[in-house]
């Protein structure tokens, strides 16, 4: 058993937050509240990221996910004025039961698999000193991952154009 350290405490709190609000996200009937729950979950995930020596990713997660994507969700939800989920009975109750079972089973199987996978023994090798992480990411992006990076920029451009076209009202 690892010693009870500050890091472990932070981890525990963050995981309770993340899982709790993730559950809340699913159980909420109101889309806006779902989004807000997810925001909290993402903050928990950002804390994990910092703990896993990835502060850049943590900030990115908050910046992009919480700050942009979920705000976009909120915007759309409010634009469409969606308040409540449909209440009438599911046409196929089997979907509900099977879906529940599948999610449960997949979660169990995956955690089992993750836990049973061989763990590295001893101290994990250092990634990099914290101060050098961002230049390193920059260098990697423009060397080893250059192709992916360029493809990504193209994808973003296409997505922007696509989103614009899709949401444009067509005047006939």
């Amino acid at each position: 058993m690892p010693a009870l350290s500050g890091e472990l405490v932070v981890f525990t709190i963050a995981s309770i937050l993340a899982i709790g609000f993730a559950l809340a996200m699913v159980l909420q009937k109101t889309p806006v509240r779902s989004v807000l729950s997810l925001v909290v979950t993402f903050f928990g995930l950002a804390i994990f990221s910092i703990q896993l020596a990835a502060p850049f990713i943590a900030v990115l997660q908050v910046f992009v996910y919480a700050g942009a994507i979920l705000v976009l969700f909120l915007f759309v939800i409010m634009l469409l004025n969606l308040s409540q989920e449909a209440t009438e009975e599911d046409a196929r109750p089997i979907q509900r039961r099977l879906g529940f079972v599948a999610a449960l089973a997949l979660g169990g199987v995956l955690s089992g698999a993750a836990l049973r996978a061989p763990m590295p023994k001893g101290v994990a090798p250092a990634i990099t000193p914290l101060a050098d992480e961002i230049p390193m990411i920059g260098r990697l992006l423009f060397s080893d991952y250059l192709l992916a990076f360029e493809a990504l920029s193209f994808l973003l451009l296409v997505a922007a154009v696509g989103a614009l076209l899709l949401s444009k009202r067509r005047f006939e």
Partner: protein
Amino acid sequence: MTGALPGVAPMAVPPGAYLVVGTLLFAIGLAGTLLKRNALSIFLSIELMMNAVNLLFLTYARMRGDMAGQMIVFFVIAIAAAEASVGLAIFVALFRVRRTVDVDEIALLKW
């Protein structure tokens, strides 16, 4: 936490704990995807699943002392942004036509 270099220090939290939290979040997201009927909620659940996977990537990157995991997460986040913008635009367009985003009412895959 200034001054602490988490990358150098041994992991105080066993990596398995991160993995379990990640898979649990994934399962919750999956449940949401399968059980929700509002398209936007389903979309949110998918985002949760992606982030759960991101957590796994980061954990493995930390375990292996390798930057590749972080790079993948970087790309996943960027792609998620693209996906969200297009997906939401689709929902907006869909809503204009059908006045609903209940996926059971827009069973357009069967025609």
